[in-house]
């Protein structure tokens, strides 16, 4: 057994026996500097342990129980954490770059200001996660459950959130989008089919993001930047897009029933076949936009700005928009 592996074995034995580095400052430093990179720790039970600053990069922690553990500033780069239990764990400032957290339980975990670039959270449980200010660009969050998660100010550029559940999540100011409009890759996140019902995406940057078939019902997108985003066939009933920037966005066949789009900028948007029944488009800009085949039953359109707007075959267009129904 080489010395590193021997030390790892000893440290884990001590931890399992109930020793805690919080007993002394020196012990904490020992753990913080512990080199467990690549260690085989499958199924280990370290629930509630204080492991701040520990180096577990490349370690195999599949199925490990880290419930409530303190892992602040830990190095978990490329660690295997599949099916692990990290619920309630404190991962503030930790580095989870390229870590495999498939199906892991991180409910109520704290990832504030953590780094998790290109990490894999597919099908993970991330309910009530605290991850404001975290760096999750390129992360895979497909089918992950992020209900009530707080991701305010996080960076999710290029992240894959296909069919992720983000109900009632706080996504205020999240950086999902491309730096520049039209750059779908590598910068923009992928939220195809994601569940964002009741999520708060106010002020979020969703430029060029793929939100096809996403569920945005009752979501708050006040002032959100959705330039050139793809919301084809998205459900946005009762969502609030007030003052949102939707220039060049693809809104084809999307459902905006009862949605608020007051002062939204829909210039150059493509909204063929979209449903704006009962929506509020007051003072919205529809310049150079395609609203052919769209439905406008009972929509409020006072002050709507039209120029080169295509309303061909649109239904129930209010007379004030220049066309009779």
């Amino acid at each position, binding site marked *: 057994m080489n010395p590193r592996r021997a030390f790892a074995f000893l440290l884990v034995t001590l931890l399992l026996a109930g020793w805690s580095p919080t007993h002394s400052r020196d012990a904490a430093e020992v753990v913080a500097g512990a080199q467990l990179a690549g260690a085989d720790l499958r199924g280990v039970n370290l629930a509630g342990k204080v492991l701040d600053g520990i180096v577990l990069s490349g370690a195999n922690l599949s199925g490990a129980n880290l419930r409530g553990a303190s892992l602040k500033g830990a190095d978990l780069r490329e660690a295997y954490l599949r099916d692990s239990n990290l619920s309630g764990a404190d991962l503030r400032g930790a580095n989870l770059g390229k870590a495999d957290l498939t199906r892991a339980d991180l409910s109520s975990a704290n990832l504030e200001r953590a780094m998790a670039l290109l990490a894999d959270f597919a099908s993970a449980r991330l309910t009530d996660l605290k991850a404001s200010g975290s760096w999750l660009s390129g992360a895979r969050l497909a089918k992950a459950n992020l209900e009530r998660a707080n991701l305010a100010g996080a960076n999710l550029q290029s992240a894959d959130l296909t069919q992720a559940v983000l109900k009632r999540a706080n996504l205020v100011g999240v950086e999902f989008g491309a730096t520049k409009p039209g750059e779908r*890759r590598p910068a923009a996140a992928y939220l195809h089919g994601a569940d964002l019902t009741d999520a708060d995406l106010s002020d979020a940057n969703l430029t060029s993001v793929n939100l096809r078939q996403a569920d945005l019902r009752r979501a708050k997108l006040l002032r959100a*930047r959705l330039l050139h985003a793809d919301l084809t066939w998205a459900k946005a009933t009762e969502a609030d897009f007030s003052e949102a920037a939707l*220039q060049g966005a693809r809104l084809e066949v999307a459902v905006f029933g009862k949605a608020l789009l007051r002062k939204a900028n829909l210039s150059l948007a493509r909204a063929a076949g979209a449903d704006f029944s009962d929506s509020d488009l007051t003072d919205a800009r529809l310049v150079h936009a395609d609203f052919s085949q769209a439905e406008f039953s009972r929509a409020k359109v006072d002050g709507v700005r039209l120029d080169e707007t295509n309303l061909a075959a649109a239904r129930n267009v209010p007379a004030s928009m220049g066309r009779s129904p």
Partner: protein
Amino acid sequence: MAPPVKVPLPPRNAQTFSTVCQFCIVGCGYKVYKWPVGRDGVAEANALGVDFRQPQAAFGKWVAPSMHAVITERDGKQFNIAIVPDDACSVNSGLSSVRGGGLAATLYAPDRPTKARLTTPLLAQGDGQKAVSWDEAVGLGAAIIKAVTDRWGADAVGMKFFDHGGGGGGFENNWAVGRLFFSGIGTRSASIHNRPAYNSEVHAAGDAGIAALTNAYVDAQLADTILVVGANPYETQTNYFLNHMVKNLSGDALSLKRGAFGAEAVEKGRMIVVDPRRTMTVAAAEAAAGKERVLHLAIEPGSDIWLLNGIARIILERNWHDGAFISQRTETQTFEAYQRSSLMMDRPRNEMLGEAAQRTGISIADMEKAAQWIAAPKADGSPRRCLMHYEKGLIWGFKNYENVAAIVDLALLTGSLGKPGSGVSRLGGHQEGYVRPPYPGGRPALNVDEAVRRGAVKLYWVGGCNPLLTTLRAGAMEVAFKERGGLVTASLRASQGKPIGERVAGVVEALKQGGMFLMVQDIYSTASSAYAHLVLPAAGWGETNLTSINGERRLRLYQRFMDPPGDAKPDWAIMALFAKKLHEFYRAEGNSLLANRFLDFDWASDEDVFIQARYAFKGTAADPIEGYAGVTYDLLRRLGPNGIQTPTRIVNNVVVGTARLYEDGKFATPSGKARFITASPPYPGYAAKVEAQRKRYRFWINNGRSNHIWQTVYHHRFLDFFNERMPIPHLEMHPDDAKELQIAAGDVVEIANDVGRVEAMAYPTDAVKRGHTFLIFGQPRGAAGELVSDHVDPATTIPYYKGAWADVRRIGPRPELTKTVSFLPQNVAE
């Protein structure tokens, strides 16, 4: 002073139709008003909704004399027709070109020059042609097709047909033609109107996984830089240029740009024009943008690959390329090959660029400037948006495959695809309607012109085109028509009045002796139809419903609003008549295998053809632009002048279009990633026969279109307005060259080389460089094709139409021809 022309106004209850111009690829929207003669609207109450008692703005809505005609329907009733540009159409926003503004003048009327339309089938008889019934024409024609196919095989039936949209065909007619020739007869001897084979003009783009038409027209308003290679959009895509490009160049689109791109740095657009001539496009762009924002690269012929790859080399070395796009959206091994082969990275930069400068005539400094305008990051560090357009100068240049590859590669290098304000697209000539079953031949396709001259084609069916004006080595084609056709003519003369079986047997004997049976299907008599044994009168634009796409893949319904003249029929109906007759023949002799190839032609209407094609047309992965799932005539009627952009898809029962291709980053290759197509150094030199011409003759004879005429002037040759301005083709030449040859403006000159000779009127202009000239192509009184050798790109069978060299000789003045022609400079704008 001529008396004022009075034009009637459409009354409020005039019938209204939505249509699209029949001419260039831009496809401007027009409204057609139709009302009985004598029931005009009045100044204060009319269908235009304009009170003409009040002074009108300079560019307001009105009916110009050229926008009005009186037509006579088959039942003898007369109607007024007014065709005015549609301000609800996003393509032209109410603008009309000089061509589209005269659409009404092209309509058939028995009391105006368009009475020259073909109205009944004609069969060669005696020294001319006599009118026959459709039964007789179809019976004889189909019997000869069958005899030829049975004896010599399907490839002995040759065809040269339109593949156009607009007035030239549309989805319906193209589908019917393809059904008859490809899945019916099964011939590989097929060729497309302007070229000797059945092939794409942009095979290289297809091989890269990129379709021919990628962008939306609004991208020309959003681009930072518009690169135009070998095209002249002011004259040949007029309202795309005026309504979109100029708005960008002049700064009128700045608010749209700011809206589209938020905080991104935007400014008014720039334009780079690669063209040997200083065209009206260059002048108009400078007037709109300022000279400092327009870069004209007056390239030497045959050097496009050097120029585009030189610019690309600069972009790569300055690190202005889009690395993320290349790594994620292209096959990286092809990028490596591209750098090695096309960009010659193993040669020192200055050596490579020095040779590029020497071959192209473009300085390295100008190449640097072009590279900067195309790809240098903007003031705020954001990537530049470049929209790249190319057309015949590149496609018909030397050589087609690698020319097109060079611009497509440049687009891939800079990530100029799938983003607003970007794209790499043909500018296009005619509208598109290519909806056909698959061509049964391979690639490169058979050279049908050569097969006609050689005698392998026994029956040649020409539809909606005129090979004697547009094909290369046109004189040799005419000899084939005359000599090979003459044998059949003599046979028909001898068998006049005899039963059809004997007549067919006589024709077959003539074919055995080297003869060729020629069928021409068109709307007018042409130089080609004069040699035809069977002439079939086709319906034209406005006389049948048709659908087509424009240069941004915008699919619309061109509504029928009048009867075809006499017995003329839509092309699809003519195809159906022949198919049904062939089915009948084969069924009668018990050959169900062949009989079944001619089933499913029972179309009752144009919409039947449209729907059948919609279900059966698969297109190709590389060329998805005409796919139109879910579209119906009813939907197109409701969508009106803006239609829907193809390809379409059905989402939750709604038909949704595609404004811009490749926004999803997936290209039409098995890997889904685009491919760089390399040009192997040394770049190809001229073929032997072209090189021989270059050495022997003094002038390069470039050729192309002019603003106010269209293609072979098939309509316009009957209209005074156009004839007065172009009675014979003009030849642009440098004033110093003209002076040296003692040629004055308007002098008739002879242009001659080893292929043929053409007469034209001289137009001295500094638009062309010394040693260069420019000749209008396809003019019935002098076709550039008479001078073009039969060299084709071996990779694509695309001719080097732009590559003829000849001597020019003064014949002398002919004032009766040129008294209505202006020789003032055209390439100026204020």
